[in-house]
């Protein structure tokens, strides 16, 4: 099957391409780029006015399967992903049971193959059952096909264990994705510690509980090496530390999530648990630092931390609700607002959402080079649309952005040369 994308603005940061041209897909691969390619039997896709970019990659999602299929499944999560323009996702290991053994990785891969919508790259647990006590069988997990290790949701408190995890994982070239949070400073907190928490009487999570662990892990990497990727950075001081570490050439990367540059702790003021996530929404100053770091590349990529929860779990007392919000279907719209506001160029946006995660994970993705897998997203950068709860493909609706009008969204998603989403409809052709 051949597809010809006609007349779009092709943005491919890896090849420093940003120009209007046609793109031909043949047998699942990028076959040709250039002006006025003749269709020659290919299905023609009119990309006029749109951006043709390498498929978006979300390196931080929670698909809840196995264990909490009432919140999300590989199927519903994959549908949400392709609707949001994503062609590859990395589900975290904190399912029930935990992805800490070969069988669990194989289950994920088999289920993803059956669903056959989006590329699923499993993240396995650093420690057995996320207990933070003993290393998982990392070698076998690598053989089974995991691409990174993380105890996401449970920070690794034990510095000695973290040291050995970095050392051991480096034998297999796997990055450790760290949820940076000091559990003692965090204890019992439910929102950012600041003016709003003081007013609301909610227990605060101090910003330093993130940066202190970032500092520790930078020191560990300096000492033993290994690849460290810092998940969902929320705090300005963490960014300063990472910027400094990068300047010294340390192998450290990081991500942030769209809510950390779109909202502040002030929005918790109505006690709506759809604004409760971990790390928490922070201050105006943190938001500005995050935008600046996205611009200068200190923050390598944007990931959603898509964390589905049922309505009955979220619609309770604020301090009793679980942390987390869904993000796959609103991410691109929110990220495009950075482009519209002049914070990022289109090339920088595509780098943060596709090329950078592919590069830091060592995945053969994130580019439109001839011969590469035809993972392609077509973005309509200007179309206004409203986020509506009933339109989510995700099984869960826990988004703080419901009712927001965003500018720009994914128009088409192609995975491995198969058209999986077009104009909001999941198509899945062969």
């Amino acid at each position, binding site marked *: 099957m051949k597809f010809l994308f006609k007349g779009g603005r092709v943005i491919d940061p890896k090849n420093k391409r940003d120009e209007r041209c046609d793109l031909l897909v043949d047998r699942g691969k990028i076959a040709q780029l250039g002006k006025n390619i003749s269709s020659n039997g290919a299905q023609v896709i009119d990309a006029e006015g749109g951006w043709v970019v390498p498929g978006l990659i979300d390196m931080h999602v929670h698909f809840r399967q196995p264990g909490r299929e009432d919140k999300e499944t590989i199927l519903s999560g994959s549908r949400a992903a392709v609707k949001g323009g994503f062609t590859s996702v990395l589900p975290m290991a904190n399912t029930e049971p935990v992805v800490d053994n070969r069988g669990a990785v194989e289950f994920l891969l088999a289920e993803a193959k059956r669903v056959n919508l989006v590329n699923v790259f499993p993240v396995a647990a650093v420690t057995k059952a996320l207990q933070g006590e003993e290393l998982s069988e990392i070698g076998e997990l690598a053989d089974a096909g995991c691409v990174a290790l993380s105890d996401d949701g449970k920070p690794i408190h034990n510095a000695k264990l973290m040291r050995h995890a970095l050392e051991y994982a480096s034998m297999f070239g796997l990055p450790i994705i760290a949820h940076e949070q000091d559990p003692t400073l965090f*204890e*019992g907190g439910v929102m950012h*510690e*600041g*003016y709003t*928490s*003081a*007013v*609301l*009487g*909610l*227990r*605060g999570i*101090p910003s330093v509980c993130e940066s202190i662990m970032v500092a520790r892990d930078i020191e560990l990497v300096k000492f033993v090496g290994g690849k460290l990727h810092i998940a969902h950075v929320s705090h300005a001081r963490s960014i300063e530390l990472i910027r400094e570490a990068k300047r010294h050439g340390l192998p450290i990367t990081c991500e942030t999530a769209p809510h950390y540059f779109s909202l502040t702790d002030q929005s918790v003021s*109505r*006690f709506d648990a759809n604004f409760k996530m971990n790390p928490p929404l922070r201050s105006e100053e943190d938001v500005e630092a995050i935008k600046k770091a996205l611009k200068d590349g200190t923050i390598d990529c944007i990931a959603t931390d898509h964390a589905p929860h049922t309505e*009955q779990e979220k*619609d*309770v*007392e*604020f*301090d*009793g609700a679980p942390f987390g919000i869904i993000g796959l279907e609103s991410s691109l719209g929110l990220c495009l607002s950075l482009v519209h506001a002049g914070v990022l160029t289109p090339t920088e946006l595509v780098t943060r959402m596709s090329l950078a995660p592919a590069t830091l994970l060592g995945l053969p993705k994130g580019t439109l080079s001839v011969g590469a897998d035809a993972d392609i997203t077509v973005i309509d950068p200007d179309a206004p649309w409203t986020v509506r709860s009933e339109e989510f493909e995700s099984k869960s609706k826990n988004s703080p952005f419901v009712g927001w009008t965003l500018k720009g969204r994914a128009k088409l998603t192609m995975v491995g040369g198969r058209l999986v989403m077009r104009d909001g409809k999941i198509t899945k052709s062969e």
Partner: protein
Amino acid sequence: MTQWTRKDLLALEELSEKEIRLVLETAYSFKEISARPIKKVPTLRGKTVVNLFFEPSTRTRVSFELAAKRLSADAMNIAVQDSSLSKGETLKDMARNIEAMKVDILVMRHPSPGSCHLLARSLKIAVVNAGDGSHEHPTQGLLDLMTIQEKKGKLEGLKVSIIGDILHSRVARSNLWGLVKLGAQVTLCGPKTLLPVACERLNARTTCDLEEAIEGADVLNILRVQLERQHGCLFPSIREYAQKFCVTPERLRKAKKDLLILHPGPMNRGVEIAPEVADGPHSVILDQVTHGIAVRMAVLFLVSQANSIRKERHEVSV
């Protein structure tokens, strides 16, 4: 004249100065009822008030119950040992069941900040906050305002120091909003570990020095040290707390002669307040308790009236 239009009373933070004054005026008009030989008026006859308490309380619960009964409402109390979530029923479901029994006003105390907001959003009946975690305790704030105003004749320009565990105190928050809106100058005083981090943005002076808080103050509102909320590392011991922060006669030597001492109760005598101070000439602690009933009568009356008007309007429009 301002009219009360709110379905609920959730927090003093969201009330205007005029609304607060309206509650206080209404409370003054109800105060006299409790001084009569027959302490009952038919104002809320046929209405039902449920006091749903998820935390132990004597004073507030009894005060709400008496307020309801003196207005001829039927009052009943539900004491829940632990939060219903542990039994598998959500707070919302529990409250909806109470609403379905055609109750008119739900008075709730709950350990979670914002829990009354959650119910107010999902119920048609009136919700009155009787204390939601460390957030607010609006009727306590109102009765403190009433007590100060009655004794001093005004609130504008008064210097009020709130002393103790500001971080965990719903009383401090409700007092702060009420006092600031009515023109008083507030000082928050306590150990550094018990002052919220962004304290300086709360329209109040903050200090860790008790002498400074006492000097020049017209009113001291001394908070109860809540031992259950200290989580082990906020201050070393009750002994040291008392040494540094107990309001004693010696510490009051430099205080204004007409100083008022308030305490929301229950008191830890000898910890945050010396017995001689609690029982001394400055103390208006028992007046606070008396005013508590008047303020709660006013609140029950105002929300009930607003809801009747709302219902009538709805019927007319249907």
